[in-house]
């Protein structure tokens, strides 16, 4: 994790986190292997696609609640419902609003998905498993990405 300037946003220095992760998910049979919880089969006749996203949720001194989407994927009906991603880098920069990542022990990663029907309600579902990721107390100075 580094402390750098976020050129895409506010011109102050903020913590930038680097996370690598593995995801194994079996959406068709409803067994979300990564979280080890059984779900019902999601892809029925009225499901056009699933918008999956991995989000990190944590608290800092500045903000009581922070949520940052690290990675997302669109899974259309008919796509391979088995996800097996190893050692993925996050798709989006994990910038905190401030310097709240340093020493933060309790960053929770959860996998959620937005069911997009052919017509009807748009539910947002959170997988019930989660992973805790602690950040170290010091910044990295080398380019380890």
């Amino acid at each position, binding site marked *: 994790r580094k402390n750098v300037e976020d050129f*895409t*946003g*506010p011109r102050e220095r903020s913590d930038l986190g680097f996370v690598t992760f593995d995801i194994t998910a079996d959406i068709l049979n409803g067994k979300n292997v990564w979280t080890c919880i059984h779900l019902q089969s999601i892809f029925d006749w009225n499901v*056009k*696609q699933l*918008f999956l*996203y991995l*989000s990190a*949720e944590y608290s800092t001194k*500045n*903000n*009581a*609640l*922070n*949520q*940052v*989407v690290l990675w*997302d994927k*669109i899974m*259309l009906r008919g796509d391979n419902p088995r996800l097996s991603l190893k050692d993925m880098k996050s798709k*989006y920069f994990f*910038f905190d*609003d401030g310097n709240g990542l340093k020493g933060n022990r309790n960053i929770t990663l959860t996998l*959620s998905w*937005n069911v*997009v*029907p*052919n*017509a*009807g*309600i*748009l539910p*947002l579902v959170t997988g019930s498993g989660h992973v805790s990721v602690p950040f170290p107390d010091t910044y990295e100075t080398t380019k380890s990405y």
Partner: protein
Amino acid sequence: AARGVGSAGPERGSRGGAAMDLFGDLRRMNKRQLYYQVLNFSMIVSSALMIWKGLIVVTGSESPIVVVLSGSMEPAFHRGDLLFLTNFHDDPIRAGEIVVFKVEGRDIPIVHRVIKVHEKGNGNIKFLTKGDNNEVDDRGLYKEGQNWLEKKDVVGRARGFLPYVGMVTIIMNDYPKFKYALLAVMGAYVLLKRES
């Protein structure tokens, strides 16, 4: 409508027959009937407006039904799809939700997904959005110098959706002649429709 045997008026050719019938109708309608038809029409319009206002109250959103105007949320939503929104005050804004927001100073609502949320203890929320089909987040769309959106920018959260239905609004916007033609036809029908 069938013409009675005793109808007044000159012999009509079959081509001009229907139009002549309508004007004949109009001339024959006395003032009372005309007022009645106008009142009927006004009632229909008022009821429609009341339903719309009722929806605004029930959903808490100033615009509970919106039409998707761009392709930035494909393949989930396409231009012409209809979205149903709610905007309950106590509903917190969370990552992954699809929100419809307006940039300060612009009229056009944008439908994108929330990708970052930072909420303070007192309930102050600031968040960042991005269209599923866009490479970058929406900071380029916000006002000059604005980096985050706030609750006040939100028109509503997308809760339900119907494909294609909103195309009618887009066509009416792009081809105003079509809109006027539609209104003229509707007006003529309502005013001239006879209650038996």
